[in-house]
């Protein structure tokens, strides 16, 4: 009986990204709009509405905060405190970027609670985020260490170590994006397996799976992604200062 149940359910286990409709761009070929795009748009809409409401509230802010203003101030203070603790005196230059990707990744991971497929479970999303981080790291390296310092760092123990150091530099965005992607994807896969293969007893208790995979793991991975970004950027700046 177990075997037939497994086989009958196994045929429609679904955790893939679906293409919704495609455009034929001249010169580009077929470009698909997928479920990830829709989920990203929903997340962006939530952030946009929150930002507009917060802007309205802050414009007529009171000295003694209450209600919604409290929430906004709490979020900003917590983010500033986290960035300040990790980056020290460089915090004010990067607070905007780190805060933005923190809120975006956090809401993307939490969107699994709404029954969406989290956009961060698409390698395209996480790789784009990691590429942005990589560009910032490289720019800060060239800005603070100059070309001479970068070349010196590349050949650091010896000239022939340069290829290995280069691979190490390019491994940063790949490992960062794969870490976030695989963590969220593992949650999506396990939830899909429970909902399809165990659908006859999946009432109520899968909520704990959502609490662990979407809330706990999502928050931890968001923190890790931002922490690593800040650490690498700070390292790139501080290496040029002595």
């Amino acid at each position: 009986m177990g075997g037939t149940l497994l086989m009958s359910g196994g045929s429609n286990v679904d955790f893939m990204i679906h293409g919704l409709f495609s455009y034929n761009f001249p010169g580009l070929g077929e470009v698909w709009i997928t479920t990830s795009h829709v989920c990203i748009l929903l997340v962006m809409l939530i952030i946009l509405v929150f930002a507009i409401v917060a802007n309205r509230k802050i414009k007529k802010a009171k000295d003694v905060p209450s209600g919604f203003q409290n929430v906004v101030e709490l979020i900003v203070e917590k983010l500033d405190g986290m960035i300040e603790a990790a980056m020290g005196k460089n915090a004010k230059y990067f607070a905007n970027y780190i805060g933005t990707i923190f809120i975006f990744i956090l809401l993307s991971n939490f969107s699994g609670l709404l029954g969406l497929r989290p956009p961060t479970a698409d390698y395209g999303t996480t790789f784009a985020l990691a590429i942005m981080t990589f560009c910032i790291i490289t720019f800060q390296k060239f800005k603070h260490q100059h070309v001479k310092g970068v070349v010196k760092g590349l050949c650091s123990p010896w000239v022939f170590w340069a290829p290995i150091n280069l691979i190490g530099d390019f491994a940063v965005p790949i490992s960062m994006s794969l870490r976030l992607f695989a963590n969220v994807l593992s949650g999506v896969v396990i939830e899909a397996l429970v909902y399809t293969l165990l659908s006859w007893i999946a009432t109520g208790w899968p909520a704990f799976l959502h609490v662990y995979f979407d809330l706990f793991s999502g928050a931890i991975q968001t923190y890790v992604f931002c922490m690593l970004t800040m650490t690498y950027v700070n390292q790139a700046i501080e290496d040029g200062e002595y």
Partner: protein
Amino acid sequence: MDINGQDFIKGCSAIGAGLALIAGVGPGIGQGIAAGHGASAVGRNPGAKSDITSTMLLGQAVAETTGLYGLVTALLLMFVQPLVG
């Protein structure tokens, strides 16, 4: 039952996916060691509990990566099937 080359490659891909998940052993051991040292650190210095916990969770989340590479490899072998020509 006739097994042609394609089926053989698919079967071997499934076996490879299973073998790739052995990578989950290492992070399990490492996270356990990190949690054990975290527990002993809290025992020595209960005042620093929140700092110790956050450091432990950060380290564990980074250590988890190698196991997740195995998961990604297994999923690629199962669903993308790069070896099936």
